């Protein structure tokens, strides 16, 4: 019985991982398409990211003369980390076997690992933009990372667990309870999501104006398959963040391992939520204006403090 459960778990795990890896560029495409619509453009279509990835994989990789092995291995590390993140988060089903290997703190650690490697790779070639991008990325992250941790803490205090499956289970399967601390956490999380995924008030994913770049400045020297993997990892990261948001704040409708009947419903619910979230993200990006880089710490500091306040509220209201 135990073995069957384990096997089922592994099947679910594989299904989810493959599904996420396959769907992530679609989500990016959807956000781009929504932005195009909101800005009165036709847009490249939903499948554009896949076409870009395919094109990039076909090209010959160009490496700078002085690129070290670190530079070459980083795209794979990035991709591996993001895939791992996607495997931890309960996206279509909870209680996946792998999620025990890493809890929310480790999840934050996975993101940090990927970030440190991409920042190091950016400094590897020794161009002016590379180190500028790395410096800015680390500036953004040193506030966003603890803020994310605090958001997770706010929800783990409620569910008495740092395991995402248990958090989701508490929120989705128990009686409906309103948690004031989550109000703070959700606002903070939204701000972190924008910052960590190089979205508009902090960074512009479609910019190629050198002086405003953060993320793009770091990956300037990548080309072909390396760039493709980095881009794919970035889509995966966006997907993972949105899934975290869904898992923490709108977990309703998720399936349990082995419950085949609930699976189609879970997938439909997931797709609906992702569609809505993508459209919302595009809307936000359209109405917000990009900030100056030195406004960013203020923005993220606010997010961090809001998350801390959420924790405090949890203690103070005793709820």
């Amino acid at each position, binding site marked *: 019985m135990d073995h069957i459960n384990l096997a089922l778990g592994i099947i679910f795990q594989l299904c989810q991982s493959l599904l996420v890896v396959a769907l992530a560029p679609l989500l990016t495409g959807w956000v781009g398409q929504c932005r195009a619509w909101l800005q009165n453009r036709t847009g490249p279509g939903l499948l554009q990211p896949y076409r870009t990835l395919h094109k990039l994989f076909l090209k010959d990789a160009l490496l700078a003369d002085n690129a070290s092995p670190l530079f070459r291995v980083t795209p794979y590390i990035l991709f591996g980390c993001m895939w791992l993140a996607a495997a931890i988060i309960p996206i279509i089903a909870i209680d996946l076997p792998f999620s025990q290997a890493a809890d929310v703190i480790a999840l934050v650690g996975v993101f940090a690992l990927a970030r440190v490697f991409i920042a190091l790779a950016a400094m590897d070639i020794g161009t002016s933009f590379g180190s500028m991008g790395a410096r800015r990325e680390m500036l953004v992250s040193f506030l966003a990372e603890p803020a994310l941790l605090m958001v997770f803490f706010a929800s783990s205090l409620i569910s008495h667990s740092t395991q995402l499956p248990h958090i989701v289970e508490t929120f989705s399967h128990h009686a409906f309870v309103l948690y*004031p601390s989550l109000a703070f956490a959700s606002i903070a999380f939204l701000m972190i999501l924008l910052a960590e995924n190089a979205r508009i008030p902090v960074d512009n994913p479609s910019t190629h104006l050198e002086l405003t770049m953060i993320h793009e400045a770091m990956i300037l020297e990548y080309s072909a398959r390396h760039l493709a993997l980095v881009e794919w990892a970035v889509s995966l990261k966006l997907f993972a963040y949105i899934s975290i948001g869904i898992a923490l704040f709108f977990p309703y409708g998720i399936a349990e391992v082995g419950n085949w009947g609930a699976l189609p419903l879970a997938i439909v619910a997931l797709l609906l939520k992702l569609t809505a979230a993508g459209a919302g993200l595009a809307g936000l990006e359209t109405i917000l204006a990009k900030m100056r880089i030195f406004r960013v710490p203020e923005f993220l500091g606010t997010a961090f403090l809001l998350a801390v306040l959420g924790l405090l509220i949890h203690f103070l209201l005793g709820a």
Partner: protein
Amino acid sequence: MSLALSTQIINLLAAILLLIAFAMISQRRILSLINLFALQGFILTMSTGVVAYSTAQHHLYYSAGLTLLLKVLVLPWLLHRLIRKLKIKWDVETLINIPTTMLAGIVLVIFSFDLAAPISQLSDSVTRGLIGIALASVLLSLLMMLTRRKAVSQVVGFLSLENGLFFAATSATHGMPLVVELGIALDVLVATFIFGIFFFQIRETFDSLDISHMETLKDD
């Protein structure tokens, strides 16, 4: 779960009130500040309504309606009109930078909860902490008045201070007598008018609404 749904909703609304108070502190633009004030009024209306429903005290419906009318519609409209006439759009300068202000805000929250803890234990009608939140939002409004340069944002601070008091009154004691509420509402309205007149006078005297200019009055 032990808490009734209405209590949970009130708790959530209280948290949102606090959130709005913090949003006001971290907001630079005066227009958004006024919108946040209106939103605060709306949350207040909702919480009053919930209290009215859950405790079946019908006079609270009237005060909810009054709040809606005055704080969500009339006052924001007045303020909008005011800044349109005064042609000010934003309030860029704060005296202390925003994260520091927010940090001070967090300290205030802890302080006010500490202060409210013995009071909350006396009263059994509310969940622990509502008075703390009300007190915190009063103090936060004061903090905002302290750290802003432009007079308009200080008025918004004053008004949201009153919101905090009102919330304390409804959630802790299920509302004041209607006469008192009417009186307060009238006071606030009148105060806003008076402030408006003041603004015009200040601007005519100093060509600016920056209150740091008023320091020059002392030397005369």
